[in-house]
């Protein structure tokens, strides 16, 4: 095989096409990325009381996220310890007293302990904790329940908060928005026929903004230059002069979040928290995307628009506000879906190229390669 042609200095190579199409690569990503790192699973307010639950796909595993009687978040593998039946198949619901397996009725309390089973008293040697549901590490942050399937979870402070520091310079700049205290104004779920990395790459650059995001570029004129807010550290993209709010037509937004600094007003910030979270902050709301990679060519993205609780409680009209980023999402995901089929083209076997305003995506690619090769083995 001939060596790849050397690139002119303006260009940097992307990952080869197979990284976006090979189920073996995806399986390895599940293992080394999604099942090893902190994963933002559920909005805390979607678990309003003990026994309320959600099931989420984390890598190759189904995880049951709930609240114990003391109100703390818990997460378990959604796998019965008897003979493996899925405990709950619904996306969400509320268990009244316990999680009971529908197969032979093994019954687990909200701490995962085995509390009852047919003939259990005849098996006094069966330890109820040992044969309880298998626990997953849990953290609540930003008003979300984060889970980690690693046996020894990496430091949340370094991994998750570290991403915020890298992008914003400090965590306080995000704390100002009090994301945990905001209320859900709108949620839209996008089922995207594209590899999760195409979505991350898209979110990291703004070379496409002037072409596919007319409304966004109207609100944030500097985006026409092609440099994403994420290209810099601590940089917020300034609203255009005539723009009154972060809305689809630049009209007035909702009530400003009181904790933000003066210099955070009229600016848009964006953070990628690898591997599956994007956070956008504007003065009156915060948008949180959670990606759920389901297959090498399929990713579900759940997007939450969060506003001050009084804005949501009063039933204020957030539609123009939601519409702006909803369009951006559709425009972006269309572009990702347009790209996915070409990943298996022979012309893309060596991948594509990154222009200077995209060069920082190369760091993401290095990171992916690093994760996949960690601990030896073939990165595929």
């Amino acid at each position, binding site marked *: 095989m001939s060596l790849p042609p050397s690139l002119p200095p303006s260009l940097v190579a992307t990952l080869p096409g197979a990284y976006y199409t090979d189920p073996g690569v995806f399986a390895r990503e599940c293992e080394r990325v999604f099942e090893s790192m902190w994963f933002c699973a559920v909005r805390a307010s979607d678990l309003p009381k003990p026994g309320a639950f959600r099931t989420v796909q984390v890598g190759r595993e189904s995880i049951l996220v709930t609240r114990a009687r003391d109100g703390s978040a818990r997460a378990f593998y959604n796998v019965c310890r008897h003979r493996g039946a899925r405990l709950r198949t619904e996306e969400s619901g509320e268990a009244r*007293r*316990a999680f009971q397996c529908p197969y032979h*009725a093994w*019954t687990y309390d909200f701490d995962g302990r085995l*509390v*009852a089973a*047919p003939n*259990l*008293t*005849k098996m006094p040697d069966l330890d109820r904790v040992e044969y309880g549901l298998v626990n997953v590490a849990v953290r609540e942050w930003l008003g979300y329940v984060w889970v980690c399937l690693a046996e020894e979870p990496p430091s949340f402070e370094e991994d998750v908060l570290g991403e915020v520091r890298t992008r914003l310079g400090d965590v306080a700049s995000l704390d100002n928005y009090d994301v945990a205290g905001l209320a859900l104004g709108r949620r839209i779920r996008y089922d995207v026929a594209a590899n999760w990395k195409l979505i991350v790459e898209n979110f990291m650059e703004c070379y496409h903004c002037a072409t596919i995001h007319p409304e966004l570029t109207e609100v944030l004129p500097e985006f026409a230059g092609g440099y994403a807010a994420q290209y810099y550290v601590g940089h917020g993209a300034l609203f255009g002069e005539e723009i009154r709010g972060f809305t689809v037509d630049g009209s007035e937004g909702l009530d400003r979040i009181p904790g933000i600094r003066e210099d955070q007003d009229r600016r848009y910030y964006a953070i990628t928290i690898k591997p599956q979270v994007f956070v956008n902050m504007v003065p009156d709301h915060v948008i949180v995307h959670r990606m759920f990679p389901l297959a090498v060519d399929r990713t579900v993205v759940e997007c939450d628009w969060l506003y001050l609780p009084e804005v949501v409680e009063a039933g204020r009209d957030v539609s123009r506000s939601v519409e702006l980023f909803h369009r951006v999402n559709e425009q972006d995901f269309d572009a990702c879906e347009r790209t996915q089929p070409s990943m298996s083209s022979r012309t893309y076997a060596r991948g594509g190229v990154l222009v200077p305003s995209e060069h920082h995506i190369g760091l993401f690619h290095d990171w992916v390669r690093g994760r996949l090769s960690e601990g030896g083995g073939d990165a595929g």
Partner: protein
Amino acid sequence: MIPVCPLRSLPRGEAFRLDADPPIAVFHTEDGEIYAIDDTCTHQDASLADGWLEGCEVECPLHASRFDLRTGKVDSPPAKLPVRTHTVVVEADTIYVIPSQEPRP
């Protein structure tokens, strides 16, 4: 009369399973009453001491039939037969039961 446990080791809202033959479940209700009934659900082999105590009733942990602790009666299927009730005696801070002499239903 069979000793069960010291009174203080069975707080309100809790149950104790006495490994007699057949086993007996002793409940201390939130109202402070103490009751004893057969521990095994009449539907399937489940321990009612592991069930959910609510007022004067316990719900089987497996299939949600409820038994009245005072009468042993069951409210709804899948269990159809009642459980027996046993006499409780508290003496010198110890709980005792006097097992029923009736045949099991």
